[in-house]
Every structure is written in structure tokens, then in C-alpha cells.
């Protein structure tokens, strides 16, 4: 049986245990010997779970564990010089073996590789037999043990509740572990980068020039590669600041209009329209910025006698601002709506005008939520890539002038990783270091947002 079939078989067995458990519980109930603690279907679920969960766990362990084990065993076949070499040599040896297993051959295969491959195929066949018998046995025995515990007083309802809790915890763990995994993988690559480039050069360097890396290694001259991250972070914050200057007032004001002034009919039309903005793919915003807004900004600027780069931070920032308007307006609208009507009544009852009620009562009460909305928008702005790649250019100028071409962290990561790369080079690895810094930045932003929200919560509750 293949692993897929094995899994299906386990599920069928557990379904049978469900039916059996339910039936025996029903029989107990109809015997009138006493009161059944839990409803029959809880007993069924209990029997099914005791059959399926341990079996699936064993199956998963075998699936993950077998390759690790075989890799360890395969080392016995490796010749001395490979074992004494570094990790790369061993990785190459393993790759050769796996080629044999998959039936891919490049010319003459060394005899030890062939031997290891043959052994691996043998082990794999054995593993399937072991897995089949073990998993089926566990599922049958586990289910039987669970099934035998069913009696009148057995509290399967409480056990099922507990199992459910653990399943929910497990789901949230998956999300957390994934995040940790991403951070760790970025972290390890960054550490490799920092072995090549000193951290202080990266953190405080004012020049970003990784393009010369290849030329430098080839010794053809022409310039030195520099890896200072400051220009990109300045660019990121410049563009984000422009975007927020656009998005916060417009988003907040439209939220106030929607929540406090608009009639239900207007609200029903305007709100979905605003939310469509959030559904426009960023690449569309990108060419809107590059083809429409940037030339417009340039011509307006030049008519005022200013020097404007054809790909300016201002154009990218304006369009990005438009992009995040719906985040702010939609979330703030929900938050403002959640302010109790009784507070508005109180304000109107004292003779407030609408805007007085909004400014002095509704907005202060909604502030924590509005701050959260803004921070979410900031994270979007900092992480946004496409608009910047298309509209702000790739020149890593260290400039606070919104009319210059600047670049952002994310767009540099894209340019570095697009196309053929060689991994041990500082240029490629620098993308991971940039990503790490970006993660740290957004993490810090979220942390501050939480602190602000907490502070105002305390004040208002």
C-alpha cells in the first residue's frame, strides 16, 4: 500500500470505529440500565479519534523520520575522503545517491554510489511494509482500546472536548511555527552574509552598490561593492511617509463620513466602491504610478521650475497612499460604528453638533482601533514592493527629497533575487539581511502599535 492508501485505510477504520462506538452507546442507552453520561455520537467520536490520531501520528513520524534515518545509514557506503570532507561534499554525495534512486544517470556511476542507491531502495521497500503493518496495528488496537472503555459512566463528551481543544491549539501552533521557521531561515542566511560583510558596514553604510560584486571577484576592476542599507531604509520611510500623508486624512475622513454622516443608501454604495480599491492588484497600481502619475508629477514639478526625476518617490508614494486608503477607511469605519450609540445620544442630548460629537466623543472612544488601522496600513506600505519597483526606480540614492528617485528595501530584495544567482555570494545573501531588517522593523512597529492601543484602552475602559 502506498502512503496515501494507508492514510485512507486509517480513516476508513476510524469511521468504522465511529459507527461501532455510536451503536454500542445506543445499545447501552436502550437497555435502560442507567443514564448514559454522554450522547452516543460522542462515544463514536471518541472511538474514532483513539483509532485515527495515534495511527496518523505514527505514519507522520515514519514519513519524516525514514529519510533522515536512511541518510544516516547511507554514510556507511561513503568513501573516506567524502566523510572527511566538509558538509558540501556530503551533500553532493547524497545528491548522487538520490539520482540513482530516481533513476537519473549522468555517465558512469561510482560503485559506492550505486551500492548506496540499491541499499536505499531496499530500505524504502522495507519501510513501506513496516509502516503498513505498524500503522494498521496502531489504528486497530488504539480504536479497540478506546472502544472497550465505552460504558454508561464513561465521559466521552468531556474527552472529545479536550481533544478538540488540543486540535485548536495545534492549528494555531502551525501558524506560529511557520512564522518562526521563516524568521529562522532568514536569520541563518543573514548570519552567513554577516560573515562576509561586517554588520556595522551593513547597518550604517551610506552606500548600496552590490552590482560590482561579480566584477570584484573576477578582478576586472571598475569599482568596489558596498552594502550599506541606510539609503534603502531612508527610501522606504520617505515613500511610506508620503503614502501615509495621503492615506491617513483621506481614509479617516471618509470613514467618518461613512459612519456618521452618510445615509444608509449612500453608505451602501460608497463603502463597497472604496473597498474595490483594496482589491486592485498592486501591479496595476504600479503601472498607473509609472505611466500616469510619475509623468504628471514630473511635468507639474518642472512647470514650477523644480527638478524632478522621471521616477520619483513622490509618484510612488502618492499611488501607494491611494492603495492603503481602503485599509484605513474600512477598518476605521468599523471601529467608529462600534462606538456605542448611547455615547452619541449623550453628546447630542447636551446640544453637540455632529462634528462636536465626532471630534470630542466618538473619535476619542474609537482611537485605539484607528491607531491599529493606521499601523496595519504602515505595515502594508513598508512591505509594498510592486509599486516601488515600477514607479520609484532602483537607484539607491540617499535622499530625503521626494522628487528624487529612491529605492526601497523590498524592491532591492526583488532585484537581487530575480534571475540566476549564485548562493555563497555576498550580493545574494544581502537580500536575506535586508529581509531580516525589514522583519525587525515591522515587528517593532506592531509592538509600538500594541503599546499605544493598550495605553488608551486603560484610559477608556
Amino acid at each position, binding site marked *: 500500500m502506498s502512503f496515501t492508501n494507508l492514510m485512507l485505510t486509517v480513516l476508513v477504520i476510524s469511521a468504522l470505529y465511529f459507527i461501532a462506538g455510536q451503536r454500542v452507546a445506543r445499545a447501552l442507552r436502550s437497555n435502560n440500565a442507567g443514564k448514559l453520561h454522554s450522547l452516543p455520537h460522542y462515544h463514536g467520536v471518541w472511538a474514532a479519534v483513539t483509532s485515527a490520531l495515534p495511527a496518523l501520528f505514527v505514519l507522520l513520524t515514519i514519513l519524516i523520520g525514514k529519510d533522515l534515518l536512511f541518510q544516516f545509514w547511507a554514510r556507511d557506503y561513503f568513501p573516506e575522503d567524502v566523510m572527511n570532507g566538509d558538509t558540501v561534499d556530503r551533500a553532493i554525495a547524497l545528491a548522487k545517491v538520490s539520482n540513482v534512486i530516481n533513476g537519473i544517470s549522468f555517465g558512469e556511476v561510482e560503485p559506492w554510489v550505486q551500492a548506496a542507491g540499491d541499499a536505499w531502495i531496499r530500505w524504502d521497500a522495507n519501510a513501506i511494509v513496516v509502516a503498513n503493518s505498524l500503522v494498521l496495528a496502531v489504528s486497530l488496537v488504539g480504536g479497540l482500546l478506546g472502544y472497550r472503555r465505552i460504558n454508561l459512566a464513561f465521559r466521552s463528551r468531556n474527552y472529545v472536548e479536550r481533544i478538540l481543544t488540543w486540535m485548536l491549539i495545534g492549528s494555531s501552533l502551525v501558524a506560529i511555527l511557520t512564522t518562526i521557521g521563516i524568521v529562522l531561515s532568514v536569520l541563518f542566511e543573514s548570519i552567513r552574509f554577516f560573515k562576509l560583510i561586517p554588520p556595522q558596514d551593513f547597518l550604517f553604510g551610506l552606500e548600496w552598490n552590490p552590482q560590482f560584486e561579480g566584477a570584484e571577484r573576477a578582478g576586472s576592476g571598475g569599482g568596489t561593492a558596498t552594502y550599506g542599507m541606510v539609503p534603502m531604509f531612508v527610501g522606504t520611510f520617505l515613500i511610506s511617509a508620503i503614502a501615509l500623508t495621503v492615506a491617513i486624512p483621506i481614509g479617516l475622513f471618509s470613514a467618518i463620513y461613512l459612519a456618521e454622516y452618510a445615509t*444608509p443608501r449612500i453608505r451602501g454604495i460608497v463603502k463597497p466602491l472604496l473597498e474595490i480599491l483594496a482589491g486592485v492588484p498592486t501591479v496595476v497600481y504600479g503601472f498607473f504610478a509609472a505611466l500616469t502619475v510619475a509623468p504628471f508629477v514630473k511635468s507639474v514639478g518642472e512647470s514650477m521650475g523644480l527638478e524632478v526625476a522621471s521616477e520619483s518617490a513622490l509618484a510612488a508614494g502618492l499611488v501607494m497612499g491611494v492603495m492603503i486608503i481602503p485599509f484605513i477607511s474600512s477598518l476605521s469605519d468599523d471601529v467608529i460604528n462600534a462606538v456605542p450609540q448611547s*455615547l*452619541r*445620544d449623550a453628546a447630542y*442630548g*447636551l*446640544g453637540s453638533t455632529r462634528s*462636536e460629537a465626532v471630534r470630542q466623543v466618538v473619535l476619542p472612544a474609537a482611537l485605539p482601533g484607528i491607531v491599529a488601522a493606521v499601523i496595519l496600513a504602515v505595515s502594508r506600505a513598508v512591505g509594498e514592493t510592486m509599486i516601488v519597483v515600477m514607479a520609484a526606480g532602483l537607484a539607491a540614492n540617499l535622499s530625503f527629497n521626494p522628487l528624487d528617485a529612491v529605492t526601497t528595501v523590498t524592491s532591492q530584495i526583488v532585484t537581487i533575487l530575480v534571475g540566476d544567482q549564485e548562493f555563497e555570494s555576498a550580493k545574494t545573501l544581502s537580500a536575506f539581511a535586508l529581509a531580516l531588517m525589514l522583519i525587525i522593523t515591522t515587528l517593532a512597529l506592531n509592538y509600538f502599535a500594541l503599546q499605544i492601543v493598550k495605553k488608551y484602552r486603560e484610559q*477608556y475602559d
Partner: protein
Amino acid sequence: MVQNTNQVEGRAVPEKTLGEIQVDNPRMSARNVNVFYGEKQAIDNISLDIGMSQVISFIGPSGCGKSTFLRCLNRMNDTIDICKVDGEIKIDHQNIYDPAIDVVSLRARVGMVFQKPNPFPKSIFDNIAYGPRIHGLAASKVELDQIVESSLQRAGLWEEVKDRLDQPGTGLSGGQQQRLCIARAIAVSPEVILMDEPCSALDPIATAKVEELIHELREQYTIVIVTHSMQQAARISDRTAYFHLGKLVEVGDTKQVFTNPRHELTQDYITGRFG
């Protein structure tokens, strides 16, 4: 109104209100007021005077329109889109539904206290100072302090909160919150205070305190109170109006209404046969 809903146990709601609609010295007077929520008529041709420096209570079973009528008196119904009011309600001989009238200043003259205490999520001081600030009643900080202190004193809350004026009003107990809301309402020196079941969310001790407060406030203010408690109406009000299915059945001196009601519906309600 549909004909059959006008009947309770075979007793018809009278076409004309029984008792004394008029008083000698009215602060507000309503004439032929009708209120519609969309198609549904909530108030059916009610006329009533509200006397100067008197407490009048509105009683009646749930859904009889007493709160709706109360909210007409300071145009709080304006905030409900589908609500339409016709007829005439005058305060000091000025129709409050006149397009020329400023709702904002009307509500400063006719204050309101709600069923559930609803202090602003601000400090105790700022809660009281809210009204005077938006209406520019205090020329200086000292004057504002005085208004806050005297309002809290009149609401009988000063001794309890004078050391913690900077703490949030939402941190007070339910009864204290309701007295805070009353203090907030009187801080703008209204002529009339409308109270919509002000004690229904309070325990008996807090209720007693609020009633005592209403008793003291009657000297200076005209008070209209909606209540579900007939004992409360009997204890605190000078006049009592009995509402039924959107109509004003009977109005008169409280003593008269409770000891010698003119209509069987009033009789049935105050003796607890329905409601």
C-alpha cells in the same frame, strides 16, 4: 391605529384624553402631536402641557409611546432617519419644530438623561465640563471649575468624587454614573430635564438617591420622567400621564390619578392587571 389593537380586555382607548391637559403656567406645551416610524404610527394625536418647576411622570405599558413622546420634546428623534413628527410643541411660546429653530441650542435648554448611564470615556471633570465647553458657558478655568463643582454638588456626587475628578467617569458605580449623567445635564443650566427611565438599571439604594436628587432638582428645573415603576411615579411626581398604544389616556395630579383614576385602563394598569 388599527381598530382591534385599541382594545384591551374589551376596554377602548378614549378618543380624547381624560383629565387636565392644560396647566396655568406651562413651560412646554404640545398640541396634536403625531409621530410616525415609517408607516407605523407611534404617537396618536397627543396634547399635553408641562408645567413650570413641576415633575411630570409618563407611565404606561411597554411600547405605549411614552419614550417616543419624551424624545420629541428635545428633538432627539431627529437622529432616527425614518421618524417623522407633526403637530406643535412649544417651549416658552416658540415652536421647537419650526425650521428656524436651532436644535443645538434647544437641546441645551431641554437636557436629557438616558435609561442606561452613559458617561463619556473621559475623566469625571471632563464629563461635566463637556456641555459648558461646547456652549462656551465658562469664560475662564476658574469659572469652569465652579460650574463643575456646583453641578456635582447639586447632583449629590461632589463628596464622593471630589478627590478623583481626573479619573475616568466610567470607573464609577452604576448609580454614581447615573448621577454623573444628571450632573452633566444640569451643568449647561437647562430649563427642562427629560429622564428616560433613569433608574431602571440601578439597584434600590442608588434608585433612592436618584429619586432624592429629583426631589431637590424640582425647585429649579422642570422635570419629565418616564418610568416603569408606579411607586416611583407616585413618590416623585406632581402630575402623572398615562399612555396607552400611542395615545395619552389620562393625565392629572398624581394623587388623583393613583387614588381615583378616571379611565378603566389607567385603573387596570396601576392596580397591576396588565403592563
